[in-house]
């Protein structure tokens, strides 16, 4: 029975088995490993092309906080994306402020959970996270710089040449690796440790009666658009802010008349921290937002049909509903994230 072939086949098999045994020991906890929270969908980002490493993350962080990305060295990503507000803008900048104090046209959104987003910006014009900074660098009311100049400035800087060598084993800084580094930094901005998360993942957290009532009311009244664990369906909708639009939103990208006045349904994670609200910073508080949905909406032909009912426009909300919904929305604040030293400027 035991021919030489069987002997060798068994030997090979034994080697395979013992190899897989060696993979068993668990790895040490690595803060630079991208992890998907248990209650989140799978990420969309192309991690195979650009996995997160400590050196890449540190480089991305240095770039994020450095005004070297702007034309005159006066503004960085951090000007409009601040950790204390979940990397949205500060409330003192309802619209973004770029070089020469130039005012943008929209409220800078939070950068959390970008790895799970299919499209970026209020109009969804950018479809890959790597390309997001190009828009911010080149916009004349943001950083107003060319990507060629950014690369030249980084190459002339020994600190950055060393950091790019450490992160990517390259001698010359190039734009794609600059974008890789920034994506590594933003990809790690996973915010999934709110009171709500600890409740929904059965990690010992609980919600109060009012918060639970708010969750139920929110799911019923708001969940059609703010769906899933990121509290957005990533669609573009007109939510009745205006009847004429200087900023036509999604229409800028699709050129469809039916997209005039539509903007992305925003994620509501950390929403209590990210005032003011809406693409044009129309509302200062969550109360104002809910009052708008209750009785403040105005008609334009692209109005989302979700809001059209026999009484006119809006979502029927009692004052008690609003209080409960806001109590629930407050549970989406991730205090660990906004205090996480991982993201602190070095």
């Amino acid at each position, binding site marked *: 029975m035991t021919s030489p072939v069987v002997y060798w*086949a068994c030997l090979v098999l034994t080697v395979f088995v013992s190899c897989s045994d060696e993979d068993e020991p668990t790895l040490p906890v690595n803060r630079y490993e991208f992890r998907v929270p248990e209650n989140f969908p799978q990420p969309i980002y192309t991690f195979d092309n650009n996995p997160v490493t400590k050196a890449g993350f540190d480089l991305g962080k240095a770039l994020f906080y450095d005004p070297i990305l702007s034309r005159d060295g006066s503004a960085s990503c951090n000007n409009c994306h601040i950790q204390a507000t979940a990397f949205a803008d500060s409330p003192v900048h309802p619209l973004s402020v770029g070089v020469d104090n130039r005012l943008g046209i929209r409220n800078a959104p939070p950068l959390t959970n970008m790895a799970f987003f299919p499209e970026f910006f209020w109009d969804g014009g950018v479809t890959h996270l*790597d390309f997001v900074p190009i828009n911010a660098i080149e916009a004349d009311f943001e950083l107003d710089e060319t990507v060629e100049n950014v690369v030249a400035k980084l190459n002339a800087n020994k600190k950055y040449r060393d950091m790019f060598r450490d992160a990517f084993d390259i001698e010359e800084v190039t*734009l794609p690796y600059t974008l890789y580094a920034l994506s590594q930094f933003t990809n790690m901005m996973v915010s999934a440790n709110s009171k709500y998360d600890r409740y929904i993942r059965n990690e010992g957290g609980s919600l109060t009666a009012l918060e639970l009532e708010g969750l139920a009311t929110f799911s019923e009244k708001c969940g059609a658009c703010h769906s899933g664990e990121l509290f957005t369906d990533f669609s573009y909708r007109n939510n009745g802010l205006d009847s004429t639009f200087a900023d036509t939103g999604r229409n800028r990208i*699709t050129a469809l008349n039916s997209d005039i006045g539509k903007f992305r349904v925003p994620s509501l994670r950390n929403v209590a921290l990210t005032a003011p609200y809406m693409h044009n910073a129309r509302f200062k508080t969550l109360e104002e937002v809910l009052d708008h949905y209750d009785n403040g909406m105005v008609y334009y032909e692209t109005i989302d049909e979700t809001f059209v009912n026999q009484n006119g426009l809006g979502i029927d909300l009692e004052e008690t509903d609003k209080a409960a919904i806001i109590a629930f929305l407050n549970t989406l604040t991730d205090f660990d994230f906004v205090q996480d030293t991982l993201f602190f400027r070095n």
Partner: protein
Amino acid sequence: MKSTIKFLFAFLAIASLGLTACNKDDDAPAKDPGTLSILFDNKLGDKGISLKDFGDKTFDYTDANGQAFNISLFAYYISAIELEGPGGVKHIDPLKVTANASEVTGYYHVISTTPGSNVINLSGIEPGTYNKIRFTVGVDESGVQEGAAGGVLDPANGAWFWNWNAGYIGFGVEGNASNSGQEYVDWGNGFETLEGTYAIHVGGWKDVEPQPGEDPKFVNNIKVIELDFDSSIKIEDGLSPQAHINVNFEELLKGIDFSATYAVHRPDLGKPFAEKLVEVFEFDHVHQ
């Protein structure tokens, strides 16, 4: 033990396949892989293109409607090149998108400011007889959605890229026209657009379903061109076959009214030009 026997059978099956393949090779020793040079000959009608500076009102071409114009700058992406032969042989130029410029393959940027960029040299082609070429004009979804890219796809290294509607400009041409409606614009920081110029940029790679009753305007302007050779060419080690393809800008600009159409920078505006690309690229000749 059962699994060991299964393993043994699998092992023997693979081994016998390997032996069969070896025998076949012994029967008909194959040639080594060969190369193909593809030359894109840029033309305006039956003339070559003589590039003029922006602002240069020397017009060396007049179209059927009497519009005098010239060309200052042009660029287009060629990607996903495939070759086919009558006997079923096929070569697919591999596509790879990565930040590492030296590893980016299969994307070519023919750009008027880079001499020689109109010649694409393919290698590693399975030996055989070929009579058909297929390629994409532009960078389609599979390329864009890989993220940041080096080499000819690097916007800091000459790639033609839209930041606001992220993606590559598949085909672009700029120049001066006698009747262009373009006025002078100073963009600041040393950037300006000269009076009397035109710029046609064809980009857009996404399909978005239109609402019922509305025309689709957000178009996918990526075009696949398929050209038959008039005679077959042999590709194998030791030969230097070439394929010449004419890129006729006359076809792209046919029917344009420069007084109204001088700044095309959106997918919907570029669509009429994208539809003409199938006429722009024409087979010219091959030789061994």
